[in-house]
C-alpha cells in the first residue's frame, strides 16, 4: 500500500509517496539520501539510527516513516551550523577521540545531544547508563564518555 508522508527534516519540508512499510530510517537514507543515519542491527539495540523527532532521540529503524508524519526530524547532517562549524558535542567527540570507525558515531552524537540538553550536569555513571541504547565496538566507550562529559559542558557554556 502506497501512502504519502510529509515531515520536516533538518528544517526542510519534505514529502514523498512511499510504501506503508517504509521505515523512517529508510525514508531518511534512501528517499532523502541522507546517509549519515546508519543501520547497525535489526533488534533496536545498536542505536546507530538515532535521530531526533520533535526534539527527542528516537531509533529511526524502529518506527515507520508514517509515525513521523508532520514531525520535526533532525539528523546528524543537520547538527552542525550551516557554515560547517561543528556543534559543541561534535567538536567534543573530535577533540577527545570519541570515534574510530565512525559508524556508530551519528547515533551516539544524536543521543548525546538530547541527553545533555536534559541532563547538563550528569555524572560519568549517568552518561554510561544513558548510552544503554547505543553500541560501539571500537572505542570501548572510554573516550565517548569523556567526549559527552566535555560536550555537555560546552553546550551549557555556549548557550
Amino acid at each position, binding site marked *: 500500500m502506497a501512502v504519502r508522508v510529509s515531515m520536516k527534516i533538518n528544517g526542510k519540508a519534505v514529502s514523498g509517496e512511499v510504501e*506503508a512499510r517504509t521505515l523512517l530510517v529508510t525514508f531518511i537514507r534512501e528517499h532523502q539520501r541522507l546517509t549519515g543515519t546508519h543501520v547497525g542491527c535489526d533488534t*533496536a539495540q545498536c542505536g546507530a539510527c538515532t535521530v531526533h523527532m520533535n526534539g527527542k*532521540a528516537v531509533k529511526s529503524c*524502529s518506527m*515507520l516513516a508514517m509515525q513521523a*508524519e508532520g514531525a520535526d526530524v533532525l539528523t546528524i547532517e543537520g547538527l552542525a551550523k550551516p557554515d560547517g562549524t561543528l556543534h559543541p558535542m561534535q567538536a567534543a567527540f573530535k577533540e577527545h577521540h570519541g570515534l574510530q570507525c565512525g559508524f556508530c558515531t551519528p547515533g551516539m552524537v544524536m543521543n548525546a545531544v538530547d541527553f545533555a540538553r536534559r541532563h547538563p550536569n550528569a555524572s560519568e555513571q549517568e552518561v554510561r547508563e544513558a548510552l544503554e541504547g*547505543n553500541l560501539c565496538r571500537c572505542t570501548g566507550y572510554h573516550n565517548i564518555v569523556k567526549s559527552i562529559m566535555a560536550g555537555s559542558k560546552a553546550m551549557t557554556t555556549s548557550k
Partner: protein
Amino acid sequence: MHAFNYHRPSNVNDAAAQAVKTEAKILAGGQSLVQAMKLRLAAPTDLVDLGMIKDLAGIKVDAKAVTIGAMTRHAEVAGSAEVKMAIPALAALAAMIGDRQVRNMGTLGGSLANNDPAADYPAAVLGLNATITTTKGTHAADKFFKGLYETALKPGEIITSVSFPVPKRAAYMKFKNQASRFAIVGVFVADTGAGVRVAVTGAAPCVLRLAEFEKALTAKFAPESVANLKVKADGLNSDLHASAEYRAHLITVMARRAVEAALK
C-alpha cells in the same frame, strides 16, 4: 517487513472498528511490533496507528491514583514530577524500560497489550493492583494478564488508560538480561495500605503474584521477612541466560532488595 494496509484513525472508536479484523494489529509506539514485523515474525494485513489520537496520551494524578493514558510514552512517565511524587516506584520502573530512545517512543498501552513475559509494566500494574480501562470497559489487573503474550483484550478492544492506586510505599527491582536488557527477574513490591502485593515479571511465561511473599510482608514489611523464602523453580522460565533455579533464587534477592528500597 511484509506489506500491509495502513490506517491512521483520528479517534479511538474508528480505531477499534478498524482493529477488529482478525489479522489487524494495533500500532502504539511500535517498539516491539515494528521489530517483530521487520524480522517477519509478525505480518499483519492491517496496521491501525494510534499515533494521531491525541486524547490517548497524558498523565492525571490525584490523591488516590495516578491515571496514565495508553499512548503516554515511557519517558513521560519516568520524567513526570507528579508521578515521581505520587508513586516514585512507577516512575523509576518506567525509567528502566529499554533505553532512552525506546522510552521516547514506547507506550504503556502497547506494553500491556503485548504482555511480553519479560516486560516491566505488567509488574507495576499487577503489583499496584491497577485498573485497565479499554474501549469496552475496565479490567482488574488480576484478571488482565492471561499467559504468554496473552491478555483479556478482545479483538478490536483498545486500552485507553490505566489507573494506578497510590500505595503507601513501593519499589521495583530489576535484574536485567545483559544482552536484551529485558527483565530476567523483575519484582514489584507494593505496600498498598490494605496488604502487600508482590508481582514478578521475567521469571515465568506471564507476570505473577507471590502469595507467600505477600503474606510475610503483610505481617511485617521488612527485608528479613522475605530474605529466606524459597521460590520453587517449577514452571519458571529457563533459558541460555538464566535457569529456572537461578531465576527462583533471583526472585528472593530482588524481592528483598525491593523491600529495602521501599523502606528508604
